[in-house]
């Protein structure tokens, strides 16, 4: 456990100095700030647009970090052979993998927090500059329920990171791992369509296949509550708890699989 934490802290320290990471976060914040200008062009819809764009930016740029840095976590270590010196130390392979995962998830959460603070900053500015009574009837600009969406974005990114780690635990190619991870993320957006496949297709085989895929593929659509919170709709505590439990179970399964593969892997 101690070694796992040390590896995690090391990943965090190494990642937060990565210029690519800064660029992604800076770009996301610039996009959020520029959404303020876009809002000015759309009379009456400005706050909603900023809320929408801000959450989308957090999700998208978080996804970039999770895929590209997540995939590089292990494959880059193998490519550059930095893993050799680490695994010759008193560190077990499963401690290394779990530590790598926790370190990157920690980095992601810190970045997400930075983006969320910037997001609320822009919304607070809007609240101060808009005329009094602009929010009558609608949710406030700095609606705390937006944090529910940020929380599920965090859970979604933690799951994407686990997928990236899983692929890179046995693939030697960072590019292939990134492609597989991105592919799974895209496929996971269509969870509801796969579940209701019988409503559009008559073939029982296709329906059975789609239902099977629905249960196997990660259901990323479940993490997307952006529209609800932006419009001020209530998201139940049960839904949040069930979605978070789903994410944790899926992540645990992926990490166990990654550990099993990685523990017997030859570093040629």
């Amino acid at each position: 456990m101690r070694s796992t934490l040390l590896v995690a802290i090391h990943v965090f320290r190494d990642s937060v100095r990565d210029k690519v990471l800064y660029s992604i976060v800076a770009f996301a914040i610039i996009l959020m700030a520029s959404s303020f200008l876009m809002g000015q062009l759309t009379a009456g819809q400005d706050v909603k647009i900023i809320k929408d764009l801000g959450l989308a930016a957090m999700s998208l740029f978080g996804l970039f970090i999770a895929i590209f840095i997540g995939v590089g976590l292990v494959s880059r270590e193998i490519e550059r052979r930095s893993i050799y010196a680490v695994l010759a130390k008193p560190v077990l392979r499963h401690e290394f993998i779990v530590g790598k995962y926790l370190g990157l998830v920690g980095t992601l959460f810190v970045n997400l927090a930075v983006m969320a603070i910037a997001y609320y900053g822009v919304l607070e500015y809007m609240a101060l500059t808009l005329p009094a009574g602009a929010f009558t009837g609608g949710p406030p600009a700095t609606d705390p329920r937006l944090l529910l969406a940020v929380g599920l974005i965090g859970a979604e990114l933690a799951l994407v990171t686990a997928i990236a780690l899983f692929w890179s635990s046995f693939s030697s190619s960072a590019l292939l791992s990134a492609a597989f991870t991105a592919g799974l993320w895209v496929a996971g957006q269509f969870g509801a369509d796969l579940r209701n496949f019988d409503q559009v297709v008559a073939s029982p085989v296709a329906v059975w296949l789609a239902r099977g895929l629905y249960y196997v593929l990660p259901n990323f659509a479940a993490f997307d509550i952006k529209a609800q919170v932006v419009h001020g709709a209530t998201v139940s505590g049960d839904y949040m708890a069930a979605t978070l439990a789903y994410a944790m179970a899926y992540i645990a399964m992926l990490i166990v699989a990654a550990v099993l593969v990685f523990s017997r892997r030859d570093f040629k």
Partner: protein
Amino acid sequence: MDAIRTEGLTKHYSVGFWRPRPYVALEGLDLEVAPGEIFGFLGPNGAGKTTTLKLLMQLIFPTSGRAEILGRPVGDVSVRRRIGYLPENPFFYDNLTAEELLAYFARLFGFHGQERATRVSRILDEVGLGAERRFQLRKYSKGMLQRVGLAQALLNDPEVVFLDEPMSGLDPLGRRDVRDLILRLRDRGTTVFFSSHILSDAETLCSRVAIVAHGKLVTAGSVAELVPFRVRGWDLIVSNLTIAQVHDVGGPDAVVREIADGRHHVILPEAASLDSALSRVTTHRGQLLSVNPVRDTLEDYFLARVRQAERREVG
């Protein structure tokens, strides 16, 4: 108890995606290395040196056979607290400084607080890294990375240290530093197992060597046993002599080569008299720049055995 022991250590790989075929990286390696030895593991590129080191570090798993370090199986994580390993062409984390990297590794070994800081600083001094220790590793040259690699291998004062091509990427000064470091380790009682294809280094450092070729052990023994000291002639370098005088110095059976700026290389055969040659240099008022015995080197022995193994492989 041996410091290192392998029995029938074998590693086969599958190569090719569509039609995989077996590739023998190492076949039935039996080795014993005594505590306190400097053991040279020699062989041409692709002979199985790095494969052996990776098997000992459990970076790859054997197809068959077994290996022990300090009497424990290599898979035992407690052994790793007592050993050090320098990988070939080491590479570390770009964004960390040498100090930070070593502090991270020191934490993995369980060193805390002041002890960790003191240890890191001492080791960096020992491998000759000064103010550069506070630069990010992305700015390091290959030679500097090699020094960082050595530092991390020695961080825990290991009882056995494994060095994969430790002289690789080092300039002559760096190579001398590493040679001195290895000798200091031996004086402290550390067992040093190093792979190399620089045979002169192995010859000056090792008490015993093993030669591998095509994944098989060709021979193992002490350097003195493998290469008995027998003078086969003399190498002279002389100057301030005309070509006729040089031939007179060497006699009829000597080989004479002009170097440059009036310097000549004279190779005297075993039967020639060194004393007579030297006195003729003095008679002709020439200058003797150097004189060295010509003898079988580890390199000669190595080449002969590796070629023999190649012929067997082809046959």
